[in-house]
Structure formats: C-alpha cells, structure tokens
C-alpha cells in the first residue's frame, strides 16, 4: 500500500487550473518536501490530500483509500495555515474536543499529556484568546499530532513560529520519522524543508516540475533545484 498516490490530478478555481495533471506516488515512511513559490499550488495539493477539497479531475488515494473516507482521515494529521483552534475554548477543551472527534480513548487524559509535552500544562485552563502567538502555535502542533497520525500533512509549518514552537515541531517531526510515519511538508523555506526530507517535489504554476529523491546538490546549494527545474532564483 502506498502512503499517497495521485494520478493526473487537476484542480480548477473557476476557469483557472491551480493544479495541472499532478501524478505522484509516495511510499510509507517517506518525508516529502513539497516546494514551490507562492501560488504554485502547494496548499491546494495538501488540501486535496487532507480531504478538505476535491480534485476536479484525476484519482487521489491516501493510505490506500479516498481521502474523504473517515478511516483515512482518522490516520491523517493536518497542520494548515490557520491554527484550527477555538479562541473561546481553553487549551484543554480544544485538545479534548479533537481527541473526542478522533475517537481517542480517555480524551481528557490524552489532552493533558499533550499539554505537558508542549510545555503548557499550567496553561491548560486558559482560554486560547488569551494566549501569545507562540503558545497558540504549540497548541496547534499538539492538535495535529494528538492522534499519532500515520500521515502528516504540514502546510508551511515553520512560517512565523517562535523558537519554542520550532523546537517542539522539530522534535515531533524527528520522532515521526524515527517511527516511520509519512510526512508531507510544504514550504518555501528550503533549508528547513530539505534537511528532514527523503524526497522532494517542486511545483511550478500547478505543474510538477520535479519529483524524486532528495539529492546532495539540493543540500549544498538550496537554489539548485529552482535553477535546474524551476524558473530560476
């Protein structure tokens, strides 16, 4: 079973093709850095993989099934641009809510464990609207990892994170890689994405310009990929 499989996937916003014939296959345990400039289609592709949007054309299979199947979504963790946290609920209530939605055993206990893990045990009863940006970010990371997903879909996860949130995310990503979970990481911050990646895909104006294993040249010269397969630096 592949972790994800796309076959000639197109997505249109009105008449505009945001994705043009994307075909991609990723085995379990891989870490894919999804690269591309703003508007290249990275977020659209991740939304389709997460089941938040439907492809206009083509086939999408995630963990062996349609991403809108509930069994697939139970095994996917999503960290998007928004934090998906309720401002009027406490940190503990937010995590407990998602633990219940993911049908985890003892949701409140699981939520408390995660609050400890991200260094927010003492802030559990505080309302999210009272939190700093960094605290919200750590809480959102905990929400995405709460159910120990087999596939992590992270959209620009390092953007605007504070130091503690970066540390939490890097630790969780390293653990996910050790445990052989699949990670898809969209970013335009090349260094942070390329280091943990086993594979790289470059999107240029909705087309897949490159898809393959991460190569040595990419680490030594971050701009190499764009110059070789993209539209120059």
């Amino acid at each position, binding site marked *: 079973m592949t972790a994800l499989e796309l076959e000639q996937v197109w997505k249109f916003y009105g008449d505009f093709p945001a994705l043009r014939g994307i075909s991609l296959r990723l085995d379990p345990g891989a870490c894919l850095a999804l690269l591309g400039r703003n508007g290249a289609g990275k977020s659209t592709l991740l939304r389709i993989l997460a089941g938040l949007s439907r492809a206009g054309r083509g086939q999408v299979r995630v963990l062996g099934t349609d991403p809108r199947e509930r069994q697939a979504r139970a095994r996917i963790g999503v960290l998007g641009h928004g934090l*998906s946290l309720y401002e009027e609920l406490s940190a503990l209530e937010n995590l407990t809510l998602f633990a219940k939605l993911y049908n985890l055993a003892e949701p409140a206990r699981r939520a408390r464990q995660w609050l400890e893990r991200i260094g927010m045990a003492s802030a559990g009863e505080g309302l999210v609207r009272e939190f700093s940006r960094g605290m919200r970010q750590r809480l959102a990371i905990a929400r995405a990892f709460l159910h120990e997903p087999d596939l992590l879909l992270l959209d620009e996860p390092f953007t605007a994170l504070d130091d503690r949130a970066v540390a939490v995310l890097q630790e969780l990503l390293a653990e996910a890689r050790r445990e052989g979970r699949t990670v898809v990481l969209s970013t335009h911050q090349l260094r942070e994405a390329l280091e943990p990646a086993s594979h790289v895909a470059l999107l240029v104006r909705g087309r897949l310009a490159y898809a393959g294993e991460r190569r040595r040249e990419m680490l030594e010269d971050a701009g190499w990929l764009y110059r070789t397969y993209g539209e120059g630096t």
Partner: protein
Amino acid sequence: MTAPAGGSLLESVRPRQALRPAGFWRSALTVALKDLRAELRTKQALNASLAFSVVILLLFSFAFDPTAEETRALAGGLLWLVFAFAGALIWNRSFARELPNDCLDGLLAAPISGAALYAGKAAANWLLLMAVELAGLAAFGVFYNAAWTSRFWPLLGVLALGTWAVTVVGTLFSALTVNLRLRELMLPLLVYPLLIPALLAAIQLTGPLAVGQAASAEAMLWLRLLGAFDIIFTALALGLVEAVLVS
C-alpha cells in the same frame, strides 16, 4: 518514489491504536456541545437574538395595543416572524464561528461525517432558538396579556417541531453561505422562501395555543405538514451537506 530504507516502514503505518472513527451520534453530540459551550461563553448570537425578540414584541404591543381578539388573530404570525428572524441571527453565527483560525478545516479533517457535523450544529442551533422562543413567549404573555401557559405542553410540541423545521434549513444555508461576504443578507433571502410551508403550519398551530385556546379543527393537517417538512428537509440536508462543505 520510495521510502528511504527498510521493510519496517510498511509495518510502521499500522494503526497505533484503535482508529475506528466515532459514530454518528457521538460525533454530532461532541460538535453540539462544543457549539453550545462556545456560544454560552461569548453569548454573541444568544444576546442578539433574545434582545431582538423581546424588543420587537414590545414595539408591536405599543404600536398596535391589540385587544384580546386581535391578539388571538395575530399571535401565531407575530411569534413565528419574530422567531424566524431571531433564528437567522443564530444560524448566521453557526458556521461563521468556524471561520477564525480556519476551525472548519480542523473539523472537516477530523474523521467525522459531514452529516454528523451538520446534525451537531443543527441540534445546538435548535436548543439555542428554543431558549430564545421560550423567553420570547414569556415576554409575549406579559406584553399581550396572553394565557399561553394553560396550553404549555401542546405549544411546546409545536415550537419544537416548528423550530426544527426552520433550523434544519437555516443551518444548511449557513454552511452554504459561510464564505460569502454578504452572508448576513444572503442567508435570510435564501432561507425564508423555503420556509413558507413550515411557517404557515407553525403559525396556524401556534395561534390559538398562544392565547390559551384549544387547537383548531384543522390542527392535525397542519401538524402532518410540519412533520413531513421536518422529515423531508432533515433527510435532504443530511444528504447534501457533505457536498456543500467539501467542494
């Protein structure tokens, strides 16, 4: 593309714990309790809806100073117009509450069906609107000197059925209009024409009961109409909402 190394990777994608998604009712209850908790904490829709209901009832009583006979004639229509408009304030908040921080994405990414998400939201909206209606009814009793308490249980039954009818449509269109810039305007424009049969039935049934009189001879007919509306639109909404939410 292939994984970096090792046959253990396939092994590792096995679920780490029971990954069976929660059932429909449990998911719906979780969403409903979340919505109620969030609303009771901010009281944004509840306060607006309650204030609107009481103020309109008060203004009408001052403006027309109706006699007992006039009150009997206008009670059903007045109450349900107020409830329907008060409901729009609640439905508008229902999915709009999910916009900050992209919370709707969090819900849609979770392993719950669109139908369960919708059912939870509709149940929360129903409870909130019922609370507003009971408060409005109390105000109606005071301002119009109407003895509705003598017919409380039949009236409560009619309110429950009528409120579900308007809520089931209002909540669906709340999902449909959530990303529109003019959603506060669009929602009532789209919803009220669809509600005409349910509102007609609810008005006919509520009129006599709200002033403490027995139900009219055609009550069963209107009750059947209201019940059929509830069943048909609940089934339609549950079937359509997934397509509305995920495009």
